[in-house]
Every structure is written in C-alpha cells, then in structure tokens.
C-alpha cells in the first residue's frame, strides 16, 4: 500500500434512504470509509444493519441518496461499466439452464473472451474451489454449498481487482467454510486483490481481514473500525492464539455497543 495510489473505495457522508410503503427506511447513514488497494475488509453487524446495502452501493446496484462514493477513483457507475469488481451474492444465483462450466463462462462470454481463454479460466477457477469433475452438472445436481462455490468460481473467473462478497460462506458447513477461508486468503495473498467481505461470524471476520468494519442498525452506520494486528501469513490454528482472541473480543464489544440501546 503506497500512500499515493488512490483508494479503491472511498465513501464520504454516505447515506441511503429507501422510500417504502410504510415510510422511509434509513438503510445507511453518514458512512465514511476508505479502502486501500490490497486490503481485506470485513463488514460485520446484526441483520438489517445495511451491510448488503453498502456493498450494493459500491457495486452501483443502488444509488446513494446523500454523500459520495468513488470506486477506483471514478464514480461507482463508471467503475461498474469498466467491470471493476466481481460480486458474489448472498445466494448462489446460478442460471438453472446452464451447466456449472457454462455458468462460470457467463461473464466471460459477456466480456467477449476467446473460447480458449474461457476454457482456461473455467478450469483454473473450478479447480480453485474444488469443483473439478462437476463441469457438466446442472446446478440442481449440486448441494447448496457446491452451488455457492460455483458462484465464487464465477466471480473469480471474472478476474477483477476488487471482489465484493456478500456472506458467501453463510450457508456452508464449518469444515468447507474453513477450507474456503484458507483458499480465499491464499488467493488474496497471491493476487493482491482488494476484498470486501460481509459476514455474520466473528472468527471468520478476524481470521480473514486486515480491517473489520463493525456496523449497527437503525439507522445503519459504521460504529467501529478495527485494524488487525495479525500477520499476513495465517494458518488455521492462528485462531487459538491470544492475539486472535483479543481482536475477536474487541469486535464482540463493538457489536454489543451498537446493540445496547435495543435492550
């Protein structure tokens, strides 16, 4: 991270209010956040605190109603048009009429890549998420976790420098989750991608992140930002070290503070 390179994501005084039938819902309020290149930032907070909404604003799937957002130094819309990011949704969102490999190929077809390039990327990313051998299967023939891994492969095949992931491992069992966490960290370390990662799990957030953004609801806002002191090299058993537990405790405290007025 050099000080000169522009921030990948820069939000200032960002707010978003949905107009619903039962009046306005303030999903985001006064969010200030800067994410530098190569960071791994987790967003954690109770349900409904605006994590998905924030990610969608970065992705230009929602327009903020106040404040500004820039991605790679341009507006979110320009960044989307330049295909600046890959997005992993909370659900797998595979096309049921396409096989797994054709699903991964979808963004590549849209980008107009050659057949050979497509085949190479499909193979590489399906290997990465351990789905080799399932290329010709249709989504319904795969378990929920395998479908989610296919959707991660699809986002990785896109090969953008910014990855936006909305609870990608939420539906997976602990063991697969551990494995994918390790894989994701390795990928991140190798490629120097910038990753924004939404999660409900404190250990997952601490294990993965260089920075943890704690959010609280009504209105959705950033209540705490915690820098991780863990080294970049992180074996799974780092999760038993005192340093790890200390960070986890800070995150838990931050979440509780955001919640306190609920009681």
């Amino acid at each position, binding site marked *: 991270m050099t000080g000169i390179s522009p921030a990948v994501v820069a939000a200032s005084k960002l707010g978003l209010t949905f107009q619903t039938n039962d009046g306005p819902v303030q999903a985001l309020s006064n969010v200030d956040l800067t994410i530098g290149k190569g960071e791994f930032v987790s967003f954690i907070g109770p349900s409904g605190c605006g994590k998905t909404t924030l990610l969608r604003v970065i*992705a*230009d*799937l929602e327009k903020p109603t106040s404040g500004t957002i820039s991605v790679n130094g341009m507006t979110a819309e320009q960044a*989307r*048009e*330049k*295909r600046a*990011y*890959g*997005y992993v*949704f909370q*659900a797998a*969102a595979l*096309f*049921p*009429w*396409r*096989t797994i490999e054709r699903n991964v190929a*979808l*963004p590549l*077809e*849209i*980008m107009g890549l050659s057949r050979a390039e497509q085949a190479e990327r499909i193979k590489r990313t399906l290997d990465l998420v351990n789905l080799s051998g399932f290329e010709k299967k*249709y*989504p*319904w023939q795969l378990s929920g976790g395998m479908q989610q891994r296919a959707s991660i492969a699809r986002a990785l095949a*896109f090969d953008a420098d910014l990855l936006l992931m909305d609870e990608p491992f939420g539906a997976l069992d602990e063991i697969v989750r551990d494995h994918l966490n390790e894989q994701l960290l390795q990928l991140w370390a190798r490629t120097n991608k910038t990753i924004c990662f939404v999660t409900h799990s404190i250990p997952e957030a601490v294990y993965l992140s260089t920075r943890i953004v704690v959010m609280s609801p009504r209105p959705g806002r950033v209540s705490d930002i915690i820098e991780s002191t863990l080294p970049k090299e992180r074996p799974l058993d780092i999760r038993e070290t005192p340093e790890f537990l200390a960070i986890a405790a800070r995150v838990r405290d931050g979440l509780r503070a955001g919640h306190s007025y609920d009681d």
Partner: protein
Amino acid sequence: MDSFRDKLVPVTSILAGVVVLWYVFAVILNAPFQRDLDSRANETPGAVEFIGKTLAQPKPTLPAPHQVAVNFFENTFLRPITSSRSLVYNAWVTLSSTLLGFAFGTALGIIIAVGIVHVATLDRSLMPWIIASQTIPILAVAPMIIVVLAAIGVTGLIPKAMISTYLSFFPVTVGMVKGLRSPEIMHLDLMHTYNASPSQTFWKLRVPASVPFLFTSMKVAVAASLVGAIVGELPTGAVAGIGAKLLAGAYYSQSIDIWSALVAGSIVAALLVMVVGVAGRIVDRAMGGRPA
C-alpha cells in the same frame, strides 16, 4: 412410464362411465321418434327389441357410441385417403391451415411480447387492444375476414390460417410477456454487475427464462388454432375439412357423420397438444431441466 400407468385406470373408468351414460341418453333421446315409427307401422316390439332399434336408427337424434365408432372407422381406415369422404383427408385439410396459423400466431405473439417488454409505451398502448381483440366473438369476425380476403383474391388456406393466427397469438403474447419478465431480480443484478448490454441480457437471461412459459402457452395456442381453422371452414362453404364435414352433416341431418367428425377433431386436437407437450419436455431436458 409410471405416470402413464397411474393415469390409465382413472382415465379408463371415466371413459367407461361416459360410454354408459351416452348409451342411456341415446335410448332416451331416440325413443320418441322410434315410438312414432313403430305406431305408424303398427308394431309393438318388446323392450329389448325397442332399445335395439333406438340404437340403430340411420339419422338418430343422438347416435350411439358404436354407430359413431363404425362410421369413424369406415371413414378413416376403409376409404382411400384421397376421397373427399375420408376423415384422414378432411383432417389433413384442417390440420394444414391449423399448423400454418399456429406458426404465424406463435411468431406474432413472440414479436408482440418482445415489443411490450422492451418498449414501455407499447405495454400501455397495445395491451388493452390485444385484450379487446379477444373479447370479440370469433364467429362474428371469421366471416368478415373470409369475405374481405376473398374480395382481394385471397382464398383457400390463408384466410383460414389467419383466423387460427387471430386466436393463437394471444395466449403466446400473454405467456411470453410473463416469461420474459420472469427472471429474478438477483439474476438481473448479476447481469448488471457484468455491465451486460440489453441484448446480452435478453438473449442470455430473458429468452432462456421464458422457454417454459412459451411451451405452456403454445399448448393453449395450438388448440385455439384448431378451433380457428374449423370455424374458418364454416362460413366459406368450404368443400373439405373437419368444419366442412360438420356443416354438411348438419345440412343433411347426418348426425352420425357430425359426431365422427367431432371425434376426428378431438383426436387431432389431442395429438397436437401432445406433440407440443413432448417438444416442450425435450427442450426442457436439453436445458438441464430436472426430471419430474
């Protein structure tokens, strides 16, 4: 085919019930005329003989199933298929205009649906007219179409096919509008994150998502096409076709002919719906559909 075996018993028992009822009504409805005949001939037949006679009249009010069956069999299998009395020949005449009209109707329905989905003003301006077009009784429209087209020298297959088109484009339009709008928000968002062009979103997402809707509406449309072709034969004084057979049967009080033409019509309808259904299933399987 397990589902076939599961359906066999209920379907046959319903069929048996219908046949029994049909015989009962044939006896009841044909009895007055038979009593007339008998009293004029000074005959007093026994009950069994009387019932036998009500089921063997040459121009019965309601022909008995076996009379229809015999007539159908003779006119289908025993006549050369080039004969104008052959049901195969007449069914083919109706079928050809049905298929032509169905093809036009499906194409037209798809085109209108694509327009409605992509152009907001078409949605508001066209849809009410399309719905209104279907509230006009086809029996009122058919003669006008035939007469107007005949005036400009278009006769034969085309006018009948146009009536089929008129009836069949509607279900396809409605089904395809729904189908093209069926993609989930998340899939549309996904295409948005790839900055896909509208035509890429159309071909890669909307079209494949609409395929099941297309086949469901085509099943309705093909049956409507057949009705259109038959109705189109009534006001033309057509010499051939199932509609022409129905009309001629009514004209000469050949009730048995009418009924066997009706049977031929329903068999054609069932076959058409079945063919569309099978085609739909083949396409669904090719698109990775889960076997039911």
